[in-house]
C-alpha cells in the first residue's frame, strides 16, 4: 500500500538528485518515508537518499518496493506548476503508479525491481577531514574548475587550516581557498583527493545553493557529500570515488 501527496518541488528535487547517477532506481516505500540507494554502472558515484514522511502533505506506506524509470517520472513531475501538489498511489493489482496533478492523471508502468541494478552497500569510510560550506560555494568551485580542467582536487591544508580547491588545466589554473571564517565549519585532517568533474558537475546540479553542504574528505579517498533539501526533511549523501594520482 502506498498513497502520498507531495509538493512538485520536493518530488522533483528528490528525483533530480538520483537521476544524475542512474536512469532507473528502486524506491523503498517505508512507513516513515521514502528511501533510495543507487550507484552508477561504473561504481564510481553513489547516492543515498531519504525523504521523511513529514516532507509530504500526506503519506501512507507499509514497506513496499517499486522500480521506476526516472526520466519518465521526472517528465510527469515537470507537468506540475510551482506550488502544485502531486498525488501518488500504487495500484497493487496492476503494479502501476497512478499519478495525479490537478486533474491530470497519468498511469506509470513500473519496472520489476529485480531487473534494476543491485543497490550498493554504503562503504563505511574513515574520512579524517570535514568541511561544512554553503551550496553556492560548492557551485562556484565546480564552475570555476570546469573552465580549465576535467578534474578537480579537494583538500585541506592542515598547517594553515583552510579548505582548498585546485584545478590544473592545459594552460590555466584555478585555486580557491576557504578559511574557517569563510566556512560554516572545518575539522582539519589530512585530505587531498582528485575527482572527475563529470561526476561532480552532475552532483552539484542537485545541490541547492542555499543549503548547508558537508564534505568528508581523506587522502586519495572517496568524498562524502551530505546535504538536506525540503526544509531538512530530505537528506542526500553522495559518495564519489577519486581519480588516483599516485600509483
Amino acid at each position: 500500500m502506498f498513497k502520498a501527496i507531495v509538493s512538485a518541488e520536493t518530488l522533483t528535487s528528490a528525483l533530480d538528485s538520483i537521476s544524475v547517477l542512474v536512469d532507473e532506481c528502486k524506491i523503498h516505500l517505508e512507513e516513515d518515508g521514502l528511501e533510495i540507494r543507487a550507484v552508477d554502472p561504473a561504481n564510481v558515484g553513489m547516492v543515498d537518499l531519504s525523504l521523511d514522511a513529514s516532507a509530504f502533505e500526506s503519506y501512507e506506506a507499509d514497506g513496499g518496493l517499486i522500480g521506476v524509470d526516472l526520466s519518465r517520472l521526472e517528465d510527469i513531475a515537470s507537468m506540475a506548476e510551482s506550488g502544485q501538489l502531486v498525488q501518488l498511489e500504487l495500484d497493487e493489482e496492476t503494479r502501476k503508479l497512478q499519478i495525479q496533478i490537478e486533474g491530470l492523471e497519468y498511469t506509470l508502468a513500473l519496472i520489476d525491481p529485480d531487473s534494476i541494478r543491485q543497490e550498493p552497500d554504503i562503504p563505511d569510510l574513515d574520512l579524517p577531514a570535514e568541511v561544512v560550506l554553503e551550496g553556492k560555494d560548492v557551485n562556484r568551485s565546480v564552475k570555476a574548475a570546469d573552465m580549465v580542467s576535467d578534474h578537480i582536487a579537494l583538500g585541506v591544508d592542515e598547517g594553515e587550516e583552510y579548505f582548498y580547491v585546485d584545478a590544473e588545466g592545459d594552460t590555466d589554473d584555478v585555486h580557491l581557498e576557504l578559511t574557517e571564517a569563510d566556512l560554516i565549519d572545518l575539522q582539519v585532517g589530512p585530505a587531498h583527493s582528485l575527482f572527475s568533474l563529470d561526476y561532480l558537475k552532475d552532483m552539484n546540479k542537485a545541490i541547492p545553493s542555499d543549503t548547508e553542504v558537508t564534505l568528508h574528505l581523506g587522502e586519495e579517498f572517496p568524498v562524502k557529500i551530505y546535504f538536506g533539501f525540503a526544509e531538512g526533511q530530505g537528506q542526500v549523501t553522495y559518495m564519489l570515488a577519486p581519480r588516483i594520482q599516485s600509483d
Partner: protein
Amino acid sequence: MRLDDYIEELEPDEEAQRRRLAKEKSYEITDHLEEFERNFERALSGDSLVGSTAPSIFVGRSNYPDIPVGVLSPVGDENAAEEYVTDGNWYQEGYDIPDVLQRRTGLLNSNKRANVDSPSIASRLTPNVHDAWDGFVGVQREVAIADRPVDLEIGLDDTPDLGLDAGTDVATPRGPRANARNAELRENPYVPKPIKKTLEDDDWQAQGAMTYLYRRGFDVYDINSILSAGALGETDQRRLVPTRWSITAVDDTVGQFLRGRIRNAPSIDEVQVWANEYMGNRYWVILAPGNWEFELVEMKAPGSIWNPDPEGDTWMASASEGYDGRSSYVEETAGAYYAARLAALEHLESIGRQAKCLVLREVSDDYWAPVGVWQVRESVRNAFEDTYGEAETFHDAVREVATQLPISHARLRRKSELAAGLQSNLSAFSARE
C-alpha cells in the same frame, strides 16, 4: 619484459631511411603525376573512359547536402586495382607516405553532384538508366557494396583536372578529378551474402547492421564504404554519407559494440606498455588494470603536418572517456580518437579483458603529408603484435614513457586526464575495511 629493457630495444634503426624519405618526398610525387597524365591520355577514348575498373567510392562533403559523389578508378593500372583500396593491407605491405600518395593520386575521381537523399537511394539496387543522375549514384553504390573492383564505363563531361597542386605543405595531394556525365556497369558485381542481407533489410537500424557486418568478418573499411553509399539502415534513414563522416561513424559504432562486449569482462592484471612506429608516427599504448577508461593524447612536432611552424612548440590535443563512454562529441583529436579506440578495444575484446588504456601518439616532422586516419587505426592495431614492457604501476609507466616523449611529464599530466589520475571505483575502498 621490463619496461626499460623494452624501451631500449625499440631504438629506431630506421633513422637514416626516414631522413632520405623526407628529402625525396616531393620529387617522387611530381614524377608520379607526370606518369599518370600519360596513362590518362591513353585511356581516354572520346570523352569516355572505357575499360575502367573501380575499386572504391568517394563521397565528398562540400556543399552538403548536394555533395560530390565519385567512383575512384586507377587509370592505366587496372589490373592492380585492389591495391588502390585503402585498408589494413597497406600497413601489412609496409606502404610509406610516397606509396600512399601514389595510390591516392593515381585514382581518378569521376564525380557528380547528388543530393544525399537522392531518390535512387529509395529505389535501391535498380539504377534508373533513363535518368543519368540516378544512374550514376546507382552505379556508385554497386561499386561500394561489391566485394571486388567493378568494371565500368564512365562518361566524362570534361577533361580531368589533374590535381597538380600536389606537394603543398598542408593539403593532401589529391587525385585527379573529372565531372562525370554517366557511368555504366560492364559486369554484374558480386555482392557478399551478409551485405545483401543488410541491404535488403530496410527495417534494420544502421548501427545494428554495421555491427552485424563487423561480426561477419567485414573490416571497418568495407563497412565504411557501404554506409557511405547509403546501403544500410532503415529505409527512410538511408542517405549518402560523406566518406570522412562515415569513417568516424563506423569506428565509433563498432567501438561501442566492442566496449559493450568487455563491459563485464575481468580486468587485465598487470601494467603493459606496447609501442609501434609507422610513417613518422610513434605510438605508446599503456594498459592498466581497472574498469575501461580510454584516452588519446596527440603530440605534434613543430614542422609536422598541422603544426607547420618549425620553431614552434609541440602541439597537443587529447580526448578521453570513462567506463560509460562519452556524452559529448570529441572536440580534439577527432577521427584519430575513434580509430585508436577501435584498435585498443579490438585487442581487449580478443583477450576477453577490460583495462584502462592511454594511447600516446607522437607525430614527428617525418610525417609530412596526412595519409588518413587508417594509419592511426592500423598502427595501434599492430602495436599489440609483438611484445610489451611491464611496469609496476600505471604512473610508473607514464613517467618512464614520458622520458621518450618530446614533452615533459608535467606537461603530459596537465593535458592528459589519465596521466593526471586514474578513476578508481567505490568497491576498492569498501574492500579495505
